[in-house]
């Protein structure tokens, strides 16, 4: 499985002639139980790929929404081991939806890279996006991950030129995550044209699937980006719903899970209704 599950998913999306919806939530936000219920509900609500945030105390590439999600999860004593356990429970019912862990390197480094890869694969995790591991540090995790068929999703950004793209893709796999803005998560709204131009440019270099994310928040937005990308990522907008449905002690109200999933359902209409050239 692992990388294969991601590749299969993109094959399926190709036959359906549409972009995939990638949803981001932070593991353990606002608490482990609620978070697991959300996770289990995501595929049914229309998530094609799940990105699961590993909480970190110092998320320096994230805006306030995802920073706060991390803090809530850590307050609830979330750990990397518990994140893996959550995925193991999810996999009892779902063997087809790829799960990508997203976060920062330190918790993995402290856990131990080899042990982490082994435990993550056995839990049913398929890929990793580690924000603070650029290709210059591929020997840390990307190369060990490659050896065990764990997907290693690399990021490209508005500061990436073709030469650098080749460096990024050297040990990247699964898909390329194009960060639509030079910035942090959940803040600036990206313009369509520069993103489309960047993907066109990259497609001349590589045929790896290309996802776009950062600042995409509404079903309408999703539909526009889904016209020319292979997958669209939504994070902060989902995390905001969690934030708006908890009390001061971070206890979820009875509507939280339903509201998150119905929003994902709307987002999924976005990828399904997009007008595509293919």
């Amino acid at each position, binding site marked *: 499985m692992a990388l294969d599950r991601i590749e299969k998913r993109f094959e399926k999306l190709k036959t359906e002639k549409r972009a995939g919806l990638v949803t981001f939530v932070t593991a353990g936000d606002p608490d482990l139980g609620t978070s697991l219920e959300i996770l289990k509900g995501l595929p049914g609500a229309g998530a094609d790929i799940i990105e699961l945030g590993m909480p970190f105390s110092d998320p320096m*590439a994230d805006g306030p929404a995802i920073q706060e999600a991390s803090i809530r999860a850590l307050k609830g004593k979330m750990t990397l081991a518990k994140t893996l356990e959550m995925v193991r429970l999810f996999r009892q019912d779902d063997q087809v939806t790829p799960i990508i862990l997203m976060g920062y390197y330190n918790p993995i480094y*402290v*856990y131990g890279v080899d042990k982490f890869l082994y435990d993550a694969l056995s839990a049913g995790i398929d890929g990793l996006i580690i924000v*603070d591991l*650029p290709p210059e*540090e591929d020997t840390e995790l990307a190369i060990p991950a490659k050896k065990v068929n764990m997907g290693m999703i690399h990021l490209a950004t508005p*500061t990436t030129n073709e030469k650098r793209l080749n460096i990024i893709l050297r040990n990247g796999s699964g898909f390329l995550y194009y960060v639509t803005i030079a910035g942090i998560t959940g803040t600036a709204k990206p313009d369509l044209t520069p993103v489309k131009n960047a993907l066109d440019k990259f497609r001349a270099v590589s045929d790896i699937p290309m996802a776009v994310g950062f600042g995409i928040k509404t079903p309408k937005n999703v539909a526009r980006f889904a016209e020319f990308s292979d997958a669209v990522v939504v994070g902060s907008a989902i995390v905001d719903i969690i934030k708006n449905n908890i009390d001061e002690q971070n206890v979820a109200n009875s509507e939280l899970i339903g509201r998150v999933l119905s929003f994902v359902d709307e987002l999924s209409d976005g990828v399904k209704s997009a007008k595509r050239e293919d």
Partner: protein
Amino acid sequence: MASNKINSFRNGPDEDGHFGIFGGRYVAETLMPLIHDVEKTYNEAKNDPAFKQEFHELLKEYVGRPNPLYHAKRMTEHLGGAKIYFKREELNHTGAHKINNCVGQILLARRMGKTRIIAETGAGQHGVATATVCALFGMPCVVYMGAKDIERQKPNVFRMKLLGAEVIPVTSGSESLKDSMNEALRDWVSNVEDTFYIIGTAAGPHPYPELVRDFQCVIGDEAREQILEKEGRLPDSLVACVGGGSNAIGLFHPFLDDDVNIVAVEAAGFGVNTDKHAASLSGGAPGVLHGNRTFLLMDDDGQIFEAHSISAGLDYPGIGPEHSHLHDIGRVKYVPIDDKEALEAFQLCTKLEGIIPALESAHAIAHVMKMAPTLPEDHIIVMGLSGRGDKDIFTVADALGEEI
């Protein structure tokens, strides 16, 4: 600057920015092209005589260098042992060593054509130094400072404002130095086109640990010349405080290949056996944060702790990567000094020498107070007096239970 000798302690970092296993470039992809540009620009600049000349001229005419290597006679007599010299960085313009690095980095920023400067600050000394060079070069300046630090370093906050900088309070996380660094990195990712990040200590992604060290080496280079002139020989010991480690590496580096005992002092807060300290080497483990692998204070899950020190400038749960390496190979000894010991040293130095030291520097003094009495009179200690303590009088009054 790096040495050509093969068996030198001064050869680091390698081309990927590693000092042993420490260092590296652990930053978001958006920043990588920019980080490569900084490296390229620095490599050109350091071999450019015009750059070096402008740097040293500013240090001389604007910062007021060289500052004295001062024989602290009264401290020496009082402690009754080793002969103590202070390298007086506190006499620099803006009152600390931080300005040396800021002068170097703003010249780099200008060379790269950047028009906006950002910085993080803890004690506010680096913020003030950055705001100062920005005023001098006519560049807009944004300083990120933890809300907690803004509260305990009010004089510096106002100085920055007077200098024309915008001080942005950081309310995320522990509201101190590490969170300010996160916030500065977030700003930088969002403003890659026009912005240069002046990092205030010898940490962060490569090439920062190297370039900050090189700019701060003026401390050790001068001290070396001055002690040779005064004593006709090298010192027996060097002592300096470490937060991120810039004043310490600046003093130490020119002596690493000599037969000199080198001691760096970490802030032990309430004690290294409590959960309230900032001694990453005495109480931490290797991890990855803020662009480099280094020793960090963190839990079993790799979550970074809030550090604690009475001195805002040492209140950081990490340390520069070259220090982690020097610790690993045993070339430099790292010792803890707690809040109480630093406060005592602060007062003793003020009374005996008429020099009010920064609380950061007081940590170095406290260690000198421990070691000097155990050493013979012909043992020479050179201690880095990294900054002056005017900014700390409120904190000290508070700790002593006095109202001002």
